[in-house]
C-alpha cells in the first residue's frame, strides 16, 4: 500500500473566513506555529484538533482534511 498523507484546504478556507493564522490559533487553542505546521502538512493534527478546526470554518471535516 502506498503511503498516504493528510492534506488540507486550510489556507483557502482561512482566506474565505478572513482569518489570520494567529486568529485561527486563538479560536482552536493552539499556537500560531502549530496552525502553520498543520497548514503546510508538516504536522498531522489529532482528531480533536482537526475537528475543532473544521468547526471554526463551519464545514464538514472532509472539506478541510483529505488523504492523498
Amino acid at each position, binding site marked *: 500500500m502506498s503511503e498516504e498523507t493528510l492534506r488540507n484546504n486550510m489556507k483557502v478556507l482561512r482566506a474565505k473566513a478572513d482569518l489570520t493564522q*494567529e486568529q485561527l*490559533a*486563538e479560536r482552536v*487553542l*493552539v*499556537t*500560531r*506555529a*502549530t496552525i502553520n*505546521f498543520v497548514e503546510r502538512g508538516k*504536522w498531522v*493534527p*489529532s482528531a480533536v*484538533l482537526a475537528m475543532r478546526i473544521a468547526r471554526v470554518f463551519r464545514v464538514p471535516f472532509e472539506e478541510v482534511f483529505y488523504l492523498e
Partner: protein
Amino acid sequence: MNTIEKLTRMRRRILWIVLAGTAAATVLLLSPIVLPGLRTRWLDLDRSPDPIWYGAFVVWALTVAVFAVTFLLYKRKARKDPGSKAAVDDERIRTDWLRAYRIAFLTVTGLAVVLKLFDVVYAFRLIRAFLLPDRTWLILAGAVLSLVGSFLYFSRETGDE
C-alpha cells in the same frame, strides 16, 4: 499580538537564555582542558583548578538565576489566562518535548558509554576498572531500567478485552 503569542515568545526567550548560558559555561569549563590538549595531544584530566572555572561557575549561576526569575514571570503570566496556558502547551509542543527528551536520553547514554571507554583507553592499565560498579554503570543501569520499565508500564493493557 495575543497572549498565546506573547507567552510563546517569552518561553522561546527563556529557552534561548538557558541554551546560551549553558553553552557558554560548558565552553569555559572545557577550554582549560581541551585547548592545552590540542597543543600537547593529551587531555590532562587531573589538572589543578583553573581560574576560568570560576568564570564558568559565575556564568552558570547567572543562567540559573535569570532562568528562575523569567520562568516565574512566565508562570505568573500564564496562570492569569488558563486558556492561553493550555494553548501554549499544545499537542505539537508536547510532542516536540517528547522528541527532545528522546534525543537527550540517547545523548546522555551515549556520552556515558564514550566516557567509560575513554576511561579505559586513558588508563588502560586499569582495564579491570571497566567492570567496577562505578557511577557510569549506575547511570547506564538507570537508563535501561527506566526506559524498559516505563515502556512496559505505558504499553500495559487494562480493562476488558
